[in-house]
């Protein structure tokens, strides 16, 4: 019954992905905790938090693909929502340190003490409570996205113009969070976390728990986006992506649809960020760097834009490559990474899944093709106004 309901809303691939993720979320921690270090199947703690990190990136990619792949909104600033969620979580973790900070100040985080701030800024209040922080993790990015989108979509900012102002957004936030006066620890950011919900963040068990949580949330994200994509709303979104004004003439308030999916996506990114912070142990303004957001776009493109699990594959693959290359050939790894991007765009235009799709399409009739919701060739994201006399 439930499974049947489940599969009406998730396509086969999405379903498989979800099942795999749940399995991963259970098995990896178990192998890390129960199996002896000697066992070949034992996964060392650093791999656990490493893969955990990848999965949070994957979640960011899924969120980004929801707006870009299915609604044609190319955001070059999704890192901002990720980072904001991260900061919300970071602030909770800071408050948890309490008197164990180096200055043993019961309330103020260390960086405030040595910049001799007298008392806690108003926006830091409440973050000592996990659930409040958790709420902020989704609300702060959500509200920012809503406000931003409400402005942008209503005044019909589209294509590259939208992309660039999203970049401006994250860039402005980057500069803002760099300022020490903002009260977020300046360029050093928030760090030296002690524990989360009373468990020591350093402990292997906590790491495994965080990993499991990440995997499950990612599964949830996959479910939510495939639920959206397979609903009639999803059809509307793809319609907007391919022929925005046509949707208007059919009577759809395009701006509202965009706003809805944009906000959802931002919240997803926020959650990803919140899961990211305790696993890497620091959050600082560099997360806002436009380059990071662009990389996220690249993960999606590599994996396959407009597919549910493509972004996951892309994010994991690229970051795994990064980890591997930076250790294997530290001197020249950028060549490898750069080459990867070039090769992917030239030879896998629709990403890795796209290749799989078109391969499938080649040996089966076009009926099969309907399952592929790969983006139409004509891309809406760049519209250079062509001067044109009326009719």
């Amino acid at each position: 019954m439930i499974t049947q309901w489940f599969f009406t809303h998730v396509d086969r691939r999405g379903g498989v992905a979800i099942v795999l993720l749940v399995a991963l979320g259970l098995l990896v921690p178990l192998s890390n905790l129960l199996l002896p270090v000697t066992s070949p199947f034992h996964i060392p703690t650093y791999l656990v938090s490493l893969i955990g990190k990848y999965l949070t990136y994957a979640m960011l990619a899924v969120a980004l693909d929801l707006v870009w792949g299915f609604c044609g909104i190319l955001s070059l600033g999704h890192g901002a929502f990720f980072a904001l969620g991260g900061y919300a979580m970071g602030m909770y973790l800071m408050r948890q340190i309490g008197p164990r900070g180096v200055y043993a100040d019961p309330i103020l985080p260390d960086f405030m003490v040595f910049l001799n701030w007298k008392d806690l800024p108003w926006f830091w209040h409440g973050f000592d409570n996990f659930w409040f922080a958790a709420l902020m993790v989704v609300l702060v990015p959500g509200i920012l996205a809503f406000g931003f989108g409400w402005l942008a979509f209503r005044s019909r900012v589209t294509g590259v113009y939208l992309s660039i102002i999203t970049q401006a957004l994250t860039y402005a936030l980057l500069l803002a969070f760099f300022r020490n006066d903002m009260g977020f620890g300046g360029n050093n950011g928030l760090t030296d976390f002690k524990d989360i919900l009373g468990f020591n963040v350093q402990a292997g068990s906590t790491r495994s728990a965080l990993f499991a949580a990440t995997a499950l949330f990612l599964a949830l994200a996959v479910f939510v986006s495939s639920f959206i994509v397979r609903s009639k709303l999803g059809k509307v979104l793809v319609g907007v992506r391919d022929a925005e004004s046509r949707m208007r003439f059919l009577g759809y308030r395009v701006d509202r649809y965009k706003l809805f999916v944009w906000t959802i996506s931002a919240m997803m990114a926020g959650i990803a960020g919140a899961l990211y912070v305790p696993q890497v142990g620091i959050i600082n303004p560099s997360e806002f760097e436009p380059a990071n957001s662009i990389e996220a776009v690249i993960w999606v493109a590599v994996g396959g834009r407009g597919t549910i699990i493509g972004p996951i594959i892309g994010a994991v693959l690229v970051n795994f490559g990064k980890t591997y290359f930076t250790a294997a050939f530290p001197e020249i790894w950028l060549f490898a990474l750069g080459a990867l991007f070039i090769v992917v765009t030239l030879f896998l235009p629709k990403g890795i899944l796209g290749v799989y799709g078109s391969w499938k399409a080649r040996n089966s009739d076009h009926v099969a093709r309907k399952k592929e919701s790969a983006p139409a060739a004509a891309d809406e994201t760049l519209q250079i106004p062509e001067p044109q006399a009326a009719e």
Partner: protein
Amino acid sequence: MCNLTARFIGTLAAAAIGASLALSPATAAEETIKVGILHSLSGTMAISETTLKDTMLFLIDEQNKKGGVLGKKLEAVVVDPASDWPLFAEKARQLVEQDKVAAVFGCWTSSSRKSVLPVFEELNSLLFYPVQYEGEESSRNVFYTGAAPNQQAIPAVDYLAKEEGVERWVLAGTDYVYPQTTNKILKAYLNAKGVKDEDIMINYTPFGHSDWQTIVSDIKKFGSAGKKTAVVSTINGDANVPFYKELANQGIKAEDIPVVAFSVGEEELAGLDTKPLVGHLAAWNYFQSVDADVNAEFIKEWHAYTKNDKRVTNDPMEATYIGFNMWVKAVEAAGSTDSDAVIDTIVGVSVPNLSGGSSTMMPNHHITKPVLIGEVQDDGQFDIVYQTPGLVVGDEWSDYLPGSKDLISDWRKPMSCGNFNVVSGKCGGVTN
């Protein structure tokens, strides 16, 4: 096309397999001692950090010529954290857990140090940090061989006040934590010396700031109030070149408004035509122009190693040199590379520094060093105009910050505490 694609996927798969092999716990041969080098080789910080990577390789090479340590050869493990702070943490973990390095030498920015700090404490490994920083930190697992604010900023200000008769101060910095803290300390210090607030101008700029017209002309204005004025610059690496170019072009001579910098060394000057800058100052614990045999020797070998006799040396290199030798000496003394053993033996270890004297590791994991003040020469070198008579002990907890003036740090047993509060008599922030 599809053929190519197939081949591409093939290579991908190959890379993946190779990688998974690389990541599976290393079965390293045990006859070498591994040393991790954690400096950015790409991204914004590569400018400064690449040199330190080379320095470490050079030092390890030299040490191996002398027969290594404990009869074993040293083996360098180089990774590239790419100026990306979370990646620093990941790489640190990889070095310690997977490559099983005995110690790590690395980091430049405070952010990178802060992001790896928890890793080293959790895994109880060693980090040697070779760059001047804002202080306000002392970890059992980290050894700070760069300058603390009192080993750089305060002597420099004293010099300007005494020798140049400066009464009016511009504290210009990048909006980082290091400049913020240093300037806070300096302001407190100057006020304590009776400098009024209207004689102090504090100015912050974004990282990588490149348009200095307004600020330089503001400095000029501030300087034309009849009192002798100087600029104390904590401007971060990238922004310095355009800053000095603007200074030079707007004709601010060192005789009129001298600029003393804490993060401009030989390396940074390499990108500049220094003729118009002669006389501007920098405060460090080492200059390439130091007149000492050990220094001359070091420079000679360095040039030989890099096969480039234009290659300059600078303060963080000396700090690396000191840190490395201290580690070697401590390991020899302890007879093992075990972290706890090294941490116990290294305090009090004293090795020659490159300015003729010798530096000692203090219980607070900072070291003693002389403070040198140099004037820029037209050949891009510094002419040392002042040197502290004795050695200065690195002060991790500044006496000029209300939050930290009561704190001391002593990692020797039994105290073994990084932030002991002398007033409350309690060790502040130790967990569990």
